């Protein structure tokens, strides 16, 4: 289709699309840059009290200092570690439970009301209990992170498993497929898009668990830096931690998007 001579009109059309894309990008970057500049200027001119708002240049200075001393990477590393274990285990265990529920319709129905209530319950309310039971360290924080993401994973995956076209299953049955083959050949592959979207949601949920867990008990991690900064009224530290957290979340989200494009190439 690209070999055809391109009309004047089509060139103009492409040009318009490119312009629009560029304008969107410019506007996106401007919001960030203008926001940061305004913040910095407002703090320097004492329009706002930088003791409680901090300002970009101090945050940047603090960032360089933490980076040089190396303890930034220590804190970030611990939180990322807890988060990754949390969402991988939360997603994995959630999928396993969902498979169990798919396998046994009886138990799916029995457990349904419990799932609904657990899903509605704010899981962070369980964090103190978990930390007492599991221990006030990494393990407690990781289990908190898992708890936050597992229930919604079970529900989403179960719904997805159940949404497989009945005729697809009947088709496999006419070939003489076992229940395990039905699971492997159609139910799981059918649910890969849901798995990936669940994974995306779970990264965020797992961060909720990690930060709450670190607020409660930790001696290291991004959540620890935030709480510590708040307690000693060092807003530079709090703001820096929040920015780093935002950046890491964005990177992880991007990573999953790349994985998504790789895995779902049949969907293009």
């Amino acid at each position, binding site marked *: 289709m690209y070999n055809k001579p391109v009309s004047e009109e089509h060139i103009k059309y492409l040009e318009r699309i490119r312009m629009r894309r560029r304008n969107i990008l410019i506007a996106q970057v401007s919001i960030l840059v203008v926001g940061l500049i305004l913040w910095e200027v407002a703090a320097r001119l004492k329009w706002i009290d930088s003791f409680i708002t901090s300002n970009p240049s101090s945050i940047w200075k603090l960032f360089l200092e933490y980076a040089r001393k190396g303890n930034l990477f220590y804190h970030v590393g611990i939180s990322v570690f807890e988060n990754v274990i949390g969402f991988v285990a939360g997603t994995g265990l959630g999928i396993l439970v969902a498979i169990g529920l798919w396998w046994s319709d009886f138990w799916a129905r029995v457990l349904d009301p419990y799932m609904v209530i657990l899903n509605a319950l704010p899981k962070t309310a369980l964090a103190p209990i978990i930390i007492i039971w599991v221990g006030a360290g990494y393990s407690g924080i990781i289990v908190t992170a898992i708890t936050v993401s597992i229930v919604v994973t079970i529900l989403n995956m179960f719904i997805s498993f159940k949404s497989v076209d009945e005729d697809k299953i009947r*088709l496999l049955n*006419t070939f003489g497929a076992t229940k395990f083959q039905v699971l492997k050949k*159609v139910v799981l592959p059918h649910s890969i898009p849901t798995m990936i979207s669940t994974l995306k949601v779970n990264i965020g949920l797992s961060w909720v668990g990690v930060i709450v867990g670190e607020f409660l008990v930790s001696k290291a991690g991004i959540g620890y830096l935030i709480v510590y900064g708040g307690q000693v009224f060092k807003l530079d530290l709090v703001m820096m931690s929040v920015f780093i957290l935002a950046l890491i979340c964005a990177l992880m989200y991007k990573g999953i998007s790349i994985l998504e494009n790789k895995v779902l190439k*049949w969907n293009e």
Partner: protein
Amino acid sequence: MDKKKIVEVKDISMTYHTFNGETEAIKDISFDVYEGEIVGIVGPSGCGKSTLLSIIAGLIKPSIGEVLVNGKNVTKPSKDIGYMFQRDQLFEWRTILQNVLLGLEIQGSIDRKTMEKAEKLLETYGLGDFKNSYPRQLSGGMRQRAALIRTLMVEPNLLLLDEPFSALDYQTRLAISDEIGLILKKEKKTALLVTHDISEAISLSDRIIVLTKRPARIKDIIKPELTCPDGVWSPIKCREAPEFRYYFNKIWKELDVHV
């Protein structure tokens, strides 16, 4: 008939139970299908045509009666029976070749010989260039053809077609029903075709079973004698046969449709 009986349906009745009551879907149905025949089943919508096919496939058990396929009692799906659905049910995440091999994969019988056969069938029926494409890249007609090849790959000697053309647009439907009719005859397959399209049934079938409203019983069995133009059998050509209208009207009256 000295031909071999492939299917024997013996006094089948089927009742569905739900919490709100029971529904009789099928009542006292018996018929035989002989080797190499295409038998059409027509009936008013919702009369239990698909239920009948599911019973013959061994997907559901009848309340009363039994079905023999190749002389054996059907209790569960068997590899002698191939089933085609209304929609092609190709797996979107598999290439056409992988889709076509699905049945063999389930039965654990993929080897060089069956691979070659799959490629050959795809080639013969015009899908050779698409074997590495995904279903969404194919037209509705091509997808249905791929679905047929998937069914043929496990070498069933009985094919059950459950309104296999009804999801296609009219032109595609005419073309693909013609093609699939010819493929079935060429591969010498015995087939049961459920349809609500009277013309399709007449043009494709050697015999047509007309069912009544629910609970479905056999109202009539018709053997269309068509003089197809040029003396060559082809479903689309046979629609031009002078007797076609007669059979159409006969079945239409028997279906007794009131809207």
